[in-house]
């Protein structure tokens, strides 16, 4: 059989279409369609300036201020410290220096980079997309190769619009069946990572497939791909379909109506061929998934809400047992404690995992007519999501429930902008990482879906949302 007619995966097709050349020693020189910049990218700009280089293809670079932006207001003076304000100013200065389009603090397109990019039509099927942020995997939800890079690689992309990359192995995660009522993409990912482990997809590109995925909205697929990195995957992706095309059409940077048919014919070729082979296959029965919650300090420490904190001795291997014991000490939890009913101190709804309009709607549905009994903040994923939530009346529901309704940004997920969880506090959070100190030194994070976070807010305890 000729090489060209061999069945290919989606990863293989997009990779091949972007391979400028292959080095004799292995890696491909890949063409990069989009590079997304945020405040943390300053090292790459310093590198370019030191070399006397300018961005090679400025129109393919987009900047968004998100990691350090204040969420209590949109003035630079709202920044939590002078050093944080400097990060935002440096971002603007670098973007202007490079002649690069950017959505700064006061822009109506501002938001978390991985929320903004799909929202603005910057993310499209069949593209290669990078950003110096590990959650770039989010953007694979539209059928793209999207992955996080460091600052050296970022400088390389800015200078050459290319990247040397070794092709990852392929792994298909098939989620069969219909998700039960109230079960979200977040629960699916916590379940998956709990099953295969935080290192479970190391070196692989995950393609999510199956009935449950086909039924998902783009927003849910974005959540799915977002957390691929928490299973150590290089990237996550979902084949584009009619749901994808409907989502993309009419967005600012998407192909115009005149170009639409050409683009569509290209995108229909993107999905994996029916008989393409994957190096690994994982099957999950979506109908069996319950609302999930983490108990420890790795996203793999996930159990169903009706479960209990495990006994460290129950883990296989000395390293895992020690890690579990350390986690429990940090989290101040005793083995055997039921998760349902565990008292919490604070709720955070936001982050590139769960801050889109559907996430906000699902939280509002629980909060309507109820009150949070703990301090709680809700940080929309973008300024556009914020405006939409206000137009739909969701903001009012949140405020009436006692939530602080903030401006968009990474906020308490990365805890870089001055929004953080106090030492020793237990936070029900819709973010993606429960690492030691992630939400602030000494902070104890329990990862949950937006509906579960809302349920925790009104009871002050981790709570099975199916009872609400």
């Amino acid at each position, binding site marked *: 059989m000729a090489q060209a007619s061999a069945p290919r995966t989606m990863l293989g097709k997009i990779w091949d279409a972007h391979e*400028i*050349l292959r*080095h004799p*020693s292995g*890696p491909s*020189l890949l*063409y990069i*369609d989009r590079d997304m910049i945020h405040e943390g990218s300053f*090292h790459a700009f*310093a590198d370019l300036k030191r070399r006397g*280089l300018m961005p090679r*293809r400025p*129109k*393919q670079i987009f900047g968004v201020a998100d990691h*350090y932006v204040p969420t209590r207001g949109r003035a630079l003076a709202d920044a939590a410290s002078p*050093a944080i304000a*400097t990060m935002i100013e440096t971002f603007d200065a670098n973007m202007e220096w490079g002649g690069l389009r950017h959505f700064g603090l006061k822009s109506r397109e501002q938001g978390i980079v991985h929320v903004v990019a799909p929202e603005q039509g910057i993310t499209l099927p069949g593209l290669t997309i990078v950003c110096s*942020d*590990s959650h770039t995997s989010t953007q694979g939800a539209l059928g793209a190769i999207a*992955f*996080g*890079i*460091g*600052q*050296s*690689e970022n*400088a*390389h992309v800015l*200078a*050459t*619009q*290319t990247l*040397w990359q070794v092709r*990852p192995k392929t792994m298909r995660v098939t989620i069969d069946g219909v998700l039960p009522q109230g079960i979200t993409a977040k629960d699916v990912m916590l379940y998956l990572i709990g099953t295969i482990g*935080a*290192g479970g997809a*190391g*070196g692989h590109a995950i393609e999510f497939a199956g009935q449950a995925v086909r039924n998902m909205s783009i927003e849910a697929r974005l959540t799915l791909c977002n957390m691929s990195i928490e299973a*150590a995957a*290089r990237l996550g992706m979902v084949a584009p379909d009619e749901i994808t095309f409907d989502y993309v059409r009419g967005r600012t*940077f*998407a*192909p*115009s109506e005149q170009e639409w048919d050409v683009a569509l014919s*290209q995108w229909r070729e993107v999905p994996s061929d029916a008989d393409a082979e994957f190096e690994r296959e994982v099957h999950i029965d979506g109908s069996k998934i319950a609302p999930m919650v983490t108990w420890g300090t*790795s996203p*793999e420490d996930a159990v169903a809400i009706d479960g209990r904190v495990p006994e460290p001795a129950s883990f296989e291997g000395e*390293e*895992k047992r*020690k*890690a579990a014991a350390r986690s429990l000490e940090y989290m101040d939890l005793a083995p055997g404690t039921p998760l349902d009913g565990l008292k919490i101190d604070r709720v955070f709804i936001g982050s590139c995992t769960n801050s889109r309009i559907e996430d906000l709607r699902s939280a509002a549905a629980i909060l309507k007519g109820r009150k949070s009994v703990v301090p709680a903040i809700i940080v929309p994923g973008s300024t556009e999501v914020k405006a939409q939530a206000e137009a739909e009346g969701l903001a009012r529901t949140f405020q009436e429930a006692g939530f602080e309704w903030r401006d968009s940004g990474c906020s308490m997920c*990365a*805890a*870089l902008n001055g929004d953080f969880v106090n030492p020793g506090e237990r936070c029900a959070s819709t973010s993606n*990482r429960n*690492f*030691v*100190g*992630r939400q602030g*030194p000494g902070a104890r994070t329990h990862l949950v879906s937006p509906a579960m976070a809302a349920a925790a807010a009104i009871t002050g305890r981790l709570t099975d949302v199916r009872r609400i």
Partner: protein
Amino acid sequence: MKAFTRETSTVVTIPGVNCDTDQIIPGRFIKADRAQGYGQFLFHDIRRSETGELDPAFPLNRPAAAAATILLVEDNFGCGSSREGAVYALVDHGIRALIGPSFGDIFYNNALKNGLVPVRLPEADCQRLAQHLAAFPDAEVTVDLATSELILPADLGRHPIVMNDFARDCILRGLDEIEMTFTYLEQIEAFEKARTGSHAWLDR
């Protein structure tokens, strides 16, 4: 990038599976200019007690650790955030090589770009090495990139360093990757011309 050919050193063992980049360098330090030196931030919070003093029990705080340039780490080291500051912290502290069963993908790539050599060694061998080091803390390990060999002490043997030849060559020669890529400028230009032709919406 500083070239790397061969490094012989005592080894410090850093405990913990899934040691994420937030542990290697907490987020609040990654605003710093590189010129300040990132070594001071390495494992900042996990090497200190709650009162902020260096914890004498943390392996890197032991006096003997000062001269070590190689770390032995556990599975999935460097997972999490893509912050290259994690690699800067290791490099600026003087670390030149890491040995572990697996590394976070982005961290691994970041390390290669900075001449920090991450060596993947099967878990059972890592455990044997850890046990040996616990008994003989002065034992030395050699990372020989020129011969692609990891040479362990006593009877723990020699192990191949598996790394793609491209990255290995760059590190051995201390090559500047951007300059090297520009030698392919003609192919890049031809590709981007074709790409822009068929995807005009990507470039407006």
